[in-house]
């Protein structure tokens, strides 16, 4: 019975497409395909992570789009990959989902094989590897995705946030992170909150959750691909020393209603004439 070192080499042996992206050689590539042809992949939009005093909060809208079409309004874009780690995804849904399943399995396989959990560094490197492997496809316009990894560091007893670029470079953020089409529009708002209120890691869970939802609301206002919460509530999860927990629908509903009320009260009256 043949043994492989890890899931990656196992999948390479069996020729799984995750490890061998289908790429047309550069010499055979034509110019940009005419509009309206080819594969249009479904994209996830805005995901946000902020720290709070006991860990990290993740929120995400529920919209998935393909070009100008809304494909799905109940997409889950914040997904657990082990008991203390969440992966928030933006960009190509197909590849991101495959990667989430890959990571879940790879971490479990490692732990069961070697009888010790994979280190945080090891997990981050594993994620970089799958992002990097998708670059050739992403260059051809499909399959590109940007992940946001949040985890609770049991040794350091703090939440941690890591974000990636399309090539697999990894950066650690001290306070917050965001990815997806709506993330650029709200980038400055994070800094404004930290500079005028207080750093996210000093906020209570409720304070940080309120700010994260407000940021998501602004992203939905400013980015056409980010879904609002009129129809479906956004998703929110926390990671603390006790593991991953969903923020209850009831709590979300209350906070969302409060934010909506403030928005209405502060809106200036219409003046057309």
């Amino acid at each position, binding site marked *: 019975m043949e*043994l*492989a070192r890890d899931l990656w080499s196992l*999948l390479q042996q069996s020729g799984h497409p995750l490890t061998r992206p289908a790429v047309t050689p550069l010499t055979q590539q034509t110019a940009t395909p005419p509009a309206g042809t080819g594969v249009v992949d479904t994209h996830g939009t805005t995901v946000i992570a902020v720290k709070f005093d006991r860990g990290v909060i993740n929120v995400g809208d529920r919209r998935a789009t393909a070009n100008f079409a809304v494909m799905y309004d109940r997409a889950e874009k914040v997904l657990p990959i082990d008991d203390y780690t969440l992966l928030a995804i933006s960009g190509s849904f197909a590849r991101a989902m495959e990667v989430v399943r890959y990571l879940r399995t790879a971490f*479990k*396989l490692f732990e*069961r094989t070697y009888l010790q959990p994979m280190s945080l560094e090891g997990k981050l490197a594993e994620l970089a590897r799958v992002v990097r492997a998708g670059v050739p496809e992403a260059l051809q316009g499909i399959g590109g995705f940007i992940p946001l990894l949040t985890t609770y560091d049991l040794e350091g007893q703090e939440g941690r946030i890591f974000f990636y670029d399309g090539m697999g470079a990894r950066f650690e953020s001290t306070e917050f992170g965001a990815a997806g089409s709506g993330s650029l529009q709200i980038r400055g708002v994070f800094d404004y909150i930290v500079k005028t209120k207080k750093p996210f890691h000093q906020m209570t869970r409720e304070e940080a959750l309120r700010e994260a939802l407000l940021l998501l609301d602004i992203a939905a206002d400013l980015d056409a691909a980010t879904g609002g919460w009129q129809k479906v509530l956004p998703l929110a999860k926390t990671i603390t020393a006790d593991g991953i927990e969903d923020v209850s629908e009831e709590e979300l509903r209350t906070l969302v209603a409060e934010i909506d009320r403030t928005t209405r009260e502060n809106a200036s009256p219409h003046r057309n004439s």
Partner: protein
Amino acid sequence: MYTPFDFNEAIGHKKEYIEDNLREGSPVVGMAYDGGLLLLTMRRTQRKIYEIYDRQMFSAIGKQADIENVRLSSIQYAHQEGFERSPDDVSVQRLVGFYLSPALKKAFGDQWAAPFIIRCLFAESGRTPEQDVFLTLNYDGEFRQHRRVAVIAGTQRAEDRMLERLSDNRPPLSRDEALRQAVWAWTAGARESLKATSRISRDIEEEEPIPLYEIDEAEADRVFLRDELKTAQLEVGLLERRANRESRFRLMREDELQDLLSTII
């Protein structure tokens, strides 16, 4: 010239060689209880009960290299299947029947291959207690399905003794009650294995009665178990149906095992 007789002879020698090596293995007991499944054994140095996948665990007796080979192959097969298809499609029946059994059979039947010196016990926790299953797999690829109770030991006689002990259990059992029964079944099997070894070393066919031992079986078991615990350690793996985790497997902690033993001896 190579004749069918030589084939029989060769297989016979192989079997004898393997059985010799398995004889002293510390037995493993598998039992169902009201909240899941358990595997129980006693170990000296190496850990003996392992997680295979979300709902599967495994233990074996034999040569460490072979046990490790089967363990790693099983884990690998299960995870590849779980990723390429779905975790729901991973089952010990498929793992053993499709993947492990043919490989073991091949190594056993092949004159020029080293056979696996191993006897395995797999446990799988199903969606409902009725779907819980144990599978025993032998070095020659033979496998058998069991419900509620399963054992492996160094000799057939030791396994029979253990099953005798467990024959009158009435489900559902609480975890502690199942563990108590499993400990005594293990003791019965281990004592029988020991007798077999001493019979062979003294070249005796049938066992001679040892008067003092036979007077009080229960007392003899207690003495034996107490003696074993001086050099060995109890090990219990659980598949908990209502685990709040993705994986149902966990090893029982040291303090839990101490509590258990204090109520038994």
